[in-house]
């Protein structure tokens, strides 16, 4: 066959694949939003869920999702970036590095339910943290670290070596070169990693059922004492997130309007993820601008 014809066929095939993927995603998104949007109201977004009657909301679950995300990021970002910097810039090709890489790879392929059970055993029971946001955040950190480390390492390795050399050749220390020259250039990649891990934190249910718990205590949004059991910002209280809540009412909900609430909660979850993506890309752009004058 003629090279030009093959080229045409390949182009058509790739366009078709792209269109199919877009259509599937778009269809899914429309399905979730169409089924869910009708049930979304101010009450639904702010009120706590009902146990037996119809008409409850998902207010605390939305708050829990964002709060858990914040805690998870607080643990994951410093450790993940630190690990990535170590692997990209400091590790020597020896057995320790090899072992570390192996562990990270194994960790990244662990099923989330296994990580959840590990969390239940260690954080919830052995360390006595109970079903709490804290246990949940630690488990999500374990779950997300491999991705965060890998993406940071790759972003740093992708920084042109000329940039690094230019800095070192002026007598600037390795650490200063990493923080002031390399990290700003690697930032867009690291932001992508952050968004991916955040998306997983939003959507994760299996690992959280056993660690953050499947219920939320009645919250008093006027109580900001982080140690009070009914305070929303107490990290040691149980907290069901949106994703866990959706799973729970779908599988064991006793309320008559369970299906509608699950659909609406799903729509809220998708919108939250979308909102977070846009927000973090925007913040990332601002930081990048500040560091690079681009």
């Amino acid at each position, binding site marked *: 066959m003629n090279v030009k014809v093959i080229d045409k066929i390949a182009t058509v095939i790739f366009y078709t694949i792209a269109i199919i993927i877009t259509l599937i995603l778009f269809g899914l998104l429309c399905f979730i939003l169409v089924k869910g949007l009708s049930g979304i109201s101010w009450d639904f977004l702010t009120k706590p869920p009902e146990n037996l009657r119809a008409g409850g909301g998902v207010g605390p679950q939305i708050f829990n999702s964002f709060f858990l995300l914040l805690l998870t990021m607080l643990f994951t970002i410093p450790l993940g970036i630190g690990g990535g910097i170590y692997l990209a810039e400091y590790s020597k090709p020896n057995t320790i590095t090899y072992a570390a890489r192996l562990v990270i790879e194994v960790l990244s392929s662990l099923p989330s339910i296994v990580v959840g059970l590990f969390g239940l055993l260690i954080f919830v029971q052995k360390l006595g943290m109970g079903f709490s946001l804290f246990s949940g955040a630690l488990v999500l950190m374990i779950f997300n670290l491999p991705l965060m480390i890998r993406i940071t390492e790759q972003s740093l390795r992708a920084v042109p070596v000329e940039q690094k050399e*230019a800095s070192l050749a*002026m007598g600037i220390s390795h650490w200063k070169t990493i923080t002031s020259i390399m990290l700003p250039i690697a930032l867009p990649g690291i932001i992508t990693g952050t968004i991916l891990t955040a998306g997983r934190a939003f959507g994760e249910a299996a690992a959280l059922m056993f660690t953050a718990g499947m219920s939320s205590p009645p919250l008093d949004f006027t109580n900001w004492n982080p140690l009070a059991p009914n305070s929303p910002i107490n990290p040691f209280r149980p907290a069901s997130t949106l994703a866990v809540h959706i799973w729970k009412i779908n599988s064991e909900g006793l309320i008559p309007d369970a299906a509608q609430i699950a659909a609406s909660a799903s729509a809220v979850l998708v919108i939250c993820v979308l909102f977070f993506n846009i927000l973090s890309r925007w913040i990332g752009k601002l930081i990048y601008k500040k560091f*690079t004058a681009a």
Partner: protein
Amino acid sequence: MVTCNNISLDQKDIAIETRDLNIYYGSKHAIKNLSMQIKKLDITAFIGPSGCGKSTYLRALNRMNDLIPITKTTGKILFDGININDKNVDLATIRQKIGMVWQKPNPFNKSIYENIVFALKYYGIRQKQILDEIVEDSLRKVALWDEVKDRLHKSALALSGGQQQRLCIARAIATKPEILLLDEPTSALDPISSGKIEELLFELKQDYTIIIVTHNMQQAGRISSYTAFFLLGDLIEYDETNVIFTNPVVDKTNDYIMGRFG
């Protein structure tokens, strides 16, 4: 190997000197038993075919080969009376005094202003007035000031290739080094930009010792006072540039300059 090193300088005229320098790059012996002296406040050119070791040697002079774990450097590099090829020397101080410019312009992904003051701030200069003065002074020296003075805080990556390379030279001289190492600084540039850089180097030699690696014979002939010809890790011939280009002693030098190989 026939070696003809006719340059022997008074101690006060030596900017940097190597004695019995050997550089191994993995299993490759990249520089063999090299002893040579570089004249202060003048331009010395290193020429030779690709892979002859001239760039490796250049990078050894401010210890940039340290970044490549498989290189090993033995012998002495004498600069300001100390052997800088020593584990215990402070790399920051050496690199502050021996600046470098690469083949591909590599300004930092920052503003023009930040490119120049980045190292200065790191060395502890904080007063804005002093920084501003150094920025203007450095940019004037490389004849870039008039072209960029209105956009000092815009990204350096928006400059043309030739402008970027002049900015890199400005960045290197902003820290007041004694020696400038240039690794084929014009080979990625168009002829007009190259010409500007050559003129600039000619000006700069009043204040700095310049060592330039180049593949461009005419360039070496035009701007340098001394030329060293390398081949397969050996220094073949080192003499005043007019001798190398008009009356070389070693046949290989002549063949290379005449373009018979390389």
